[in-house]
């Protein structure tokens, strides 16, 4: 599974209120509407800048705060295909994978805003074509690779019927 897209760079501790503000959360069932407001409080024009298939590249503790699954879902609806961060908050990380949104932990310090990236989800190899560098991401636990491969927890569940796929 190879993904290609542009980097949108953010800093540390990007919380779920920044990803999708609590004030829009009552529209829980309309992800396309929520998508227009992603990252609004820290980058009011973010939605207009995103092209389908783009990546978010961030620092430490991406997705901290609320458990709202609207955060990864709204990012997906906005066109974001994956997130690279130095580290993730655990609920967001799990939600992203469950929604089929790739989330990889790696050293993001050398990636610049607007860089052209190529990511191999299964091997964790990241190529930054703009910088001419290669970065290796932390491998995902097998159960998460399985969920991501199926396109999310719902599809995984349809196929396996339970967490039989939890391997050690």
């Amino acid at each position: 599974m190879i993904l290609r897209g542009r980097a949108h760079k953010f800093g540390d501790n990007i919380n779920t209120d920044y990803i999708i503000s609590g004030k829009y959360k009552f529209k829980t069932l309309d992800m396309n509407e929520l998508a227009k407001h992603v990252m609004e409080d820290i980058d009011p024009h973010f939605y207009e800048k995103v092209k389908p298939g783009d990546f978010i590249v961030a620092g430490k503790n991406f997705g901290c705060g609320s458990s709202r699954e609207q955060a990864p879902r709204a990012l997906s609806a906005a066109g974001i295909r994956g997130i690279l961060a130095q580290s993730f908050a655990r609920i967001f990380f799990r939600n992203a994978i469950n929604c089929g949104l790739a989330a990889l932990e790696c050293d993001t310090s050398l990636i610049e805003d607007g860089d052209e990236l190529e990511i191999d989800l299964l091997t964790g190899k990241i190529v930054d074509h703009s910088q001419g560098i290669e970065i290796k991401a932390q491998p995902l636990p097998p159960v998460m690779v399985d969920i991501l491969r199926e396109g999310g927890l719902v599809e995984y569940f349809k196929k396996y019927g339970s967490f039989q796929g939890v391997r050690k």
Partner: protein
Amino acid sequence: MGMTITEKIIAAHAQKEKVIPGELVQVKIDLALANDITAPLSIKELEKQKIDRIFDPDKVVLVADHNTPCKDIASAQNVKLMRDFARKYGISHFFEGGKAGIEHVLLPEEGLIAPGDLVIGADSHTCTYGALGAFSTGMGSTDIAASWVLGETWLRVPESILFLYEGKRKPFVTGKDLILFTIGKIGVDGARYCAMEFRGSVISELSLDERFTMANMAVEAGAKNGIMEADSKVLNYVSGRTSHLSRVYQSDPDAQWREIIEIDVSSLEPQVAFPHLPSNTHSVYSIPKIEIDQVVIGSCTNGRMEDLRMAAQVLKGREVNPRVRLLIFPGTPSVLKQAEKEGLLRIFLEAGGIIAPPSCGPCLGGHLGVLAEGEKCVSTTNRNFLGRMGHVKSEVYLANPYVAASSAVAGYIAAPDQI
């Protein structure tokens, strides 16, 4: 090698003798909850899959507390979706209207949590129940939907960090100050993926309400769960409330800790977390004069009886500063009734406060007290992120109920002995 409380609870629910940090396990759950923000997404997922079975309707809890009393048509539709779902599947623990309160205040009160339980919830502050010696953690709507069908979920066993609190607390230093200070010390990702176990003579002395406050904010340090030993105070609290069997665990003397952090509370002063992170903490006595527009007392962090008593102690016979709106959210209908019985509501009303219904209210910028551009609020809630309570140029300062109430009187951030 021994195990921590968290590892013991996870092992028991995975039907294993032993688990080790980093291991992925499948666990049986005792309870899975969701609220009016997160349940609709879970329900929609199940309906999309045409799944029409729930593993055990008595182990599903639905609480309408975030945008309730429903603030608009969309929130009313969401609660209706929950209500219809609860009726269809015979889910008895569905709380709305005059039965509903803030979920993490309500569930322990209703006897739905016992020591040793494993609870998951589609709300990040599900970690609150660690105060009763239960393992509880937040997840997303899809994970919760899957657990409603399977009665199980998968977990990565967290490493544990032991926090030891010793010394003698100064006046007006509460559980809220211990946890704010701790988050300030380790940072908002200082316990990322870990279990935070709180222990020491100071924890033993804390009231249960203050312990709930501490466990509640474990997630603000990135933790998977916060946990404390179930002592006699806990067992007294749950007896008569719950029909669950209490399973009391203690961490073994040779348990493995990622880190042991000792905190001497003797010099600790009431804390204020400045915008825009809960870790941005200062002593209330060391800050400049910051004029404020609103005070919020309530939430799953500080909406319990002890919290209202602290506020009333300050507000008795005093008046709220004319520049300030004071909003008080008793956590549940029972808290509200008890506050009425103790005469606290009269104190709040005579001081010029507003008594709001049990609800999450403005904590997440939803309703009932949202901030305008440039406004500043002292709040007993748990998050002060940019735009959290309203306008992106508004500010939230987190504090305990003593400081919140004194700030309402002063018109600027202050401790009770400064007004």
